[in-house]
């Protein structure tokens, strides 16, 4: 298997993007956490001011796995963020290739495309989150020169969910 194509996602890819998001969440044992719908993805990614960008990997019809029948077999979701010390950054939100299509360099090619996008958009770096239990991914990224900011610099990611956001926004 060698032929695959990386391209910018189009509205018609939304069902496949959601399918792959759920597959990745299942791999991380968090499938029940995905509440995003196709309607959200369409509105948020393909409107006037997209909240995210997506690249997809697809294979020609003759190479579709008979088990899966899908042609879109990998994706990466990213957006641009900002660090007031160094400027624009590219944030990699999700990055996934279906199990049946791994080991063919598709993941590496996706990462290369994203890094190229980062450099062309004058981004100083690419950021992302990895679960510390996911040793395979951490090693994959460290081999490519990524550093672990949580370990090295002590950065901890915090979150406020909607319920507490509403409480906070109502406070005078």
């Amino acid at each position, binding site marked *: 298997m060698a032929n695959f194509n990386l391209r910018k996602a189009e509205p018609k890819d939304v069902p496949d993007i959601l399918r792959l*998001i759920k597959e*990745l*969440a299942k791999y991380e044992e*968090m499938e029940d*956490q*995905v*509440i*995003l719908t196709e309607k959200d993805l369409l509105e*948020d990614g393909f409107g006037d001011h997209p*909240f995210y960008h997506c690249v997809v990997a697809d294979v020609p019809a003759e190479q579709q796995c008979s088990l899966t029948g899908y042609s879109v077999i990998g994706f990466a*979701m990213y*957006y641009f*963020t*900002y660090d*007031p*010390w*160094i*400027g*624009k950054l590219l*944030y990699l*939100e*999700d990055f996934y290739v279906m199990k049946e299509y791994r080991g063919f360099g598709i993941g*590496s090619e996706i*990462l*290369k495309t994203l*890094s190229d996008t*980062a*450099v062309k958009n004058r981004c100083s*770096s*690419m*950021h992302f*989150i*990895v*679960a*510390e*239990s996911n040793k395979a991914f*951490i090693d994959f990224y460290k*081999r*490519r*020169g*990524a*550093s*672990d*900011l*949580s370990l090295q*610099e*002590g*950065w*901890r*990611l*915090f*979150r*406020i*969910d*909607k319920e*507490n*956001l*509403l409480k*906070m*926004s109502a406070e005078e």
Partner: protein
Amino acid sequence: MDIITKTLFVMELAEYEKVSDQVKIAQRDLEQDGFSKNPFFHGIIAEVPEHLKSKEDSCMYFFTGHTKVGYSLYFYTYSSWKGRAVYMEDLYVMPEFRGKGIGKALMSKVSQLGLAAGCTQLNFTVLDWNKSSLDFYLKQGCWDVTSDLGYHCMRCEGDALEHLAQGGL
């Protein structure tokens, strides 16, 4: 928020976090990236009335006699599980004006704007030695994703990023 104040605040926050040598950005960059048609970030500033303006000399910059006493810098992000989210990149209040609810008010404003834009979560990072900030955030109902879910913030920059872009694996 005017760009000069924003630049000076960014420098002061960096000094507080003990990393001011890592600030590479210039006023020109902040201006272009924050005030063009499609800004990469948004900012809110906290101002006090003239009669309450700052008295103390701020650590290294010219903050005596200023009415702008704090700021927050944020932008919109996206969760592949939950959708629209807001990321608070910076939150800072001058030392002289802390303990008066200004930090909380800034965060409340960011929350309001985030909710209005359809966001369901607010994310940010905190340094693990910053005990007073950690306590403040936990009191507001935040939770530590790094601790609870084991998520680590990773970065690929400079030569490593260029190398990756050229397919050097």
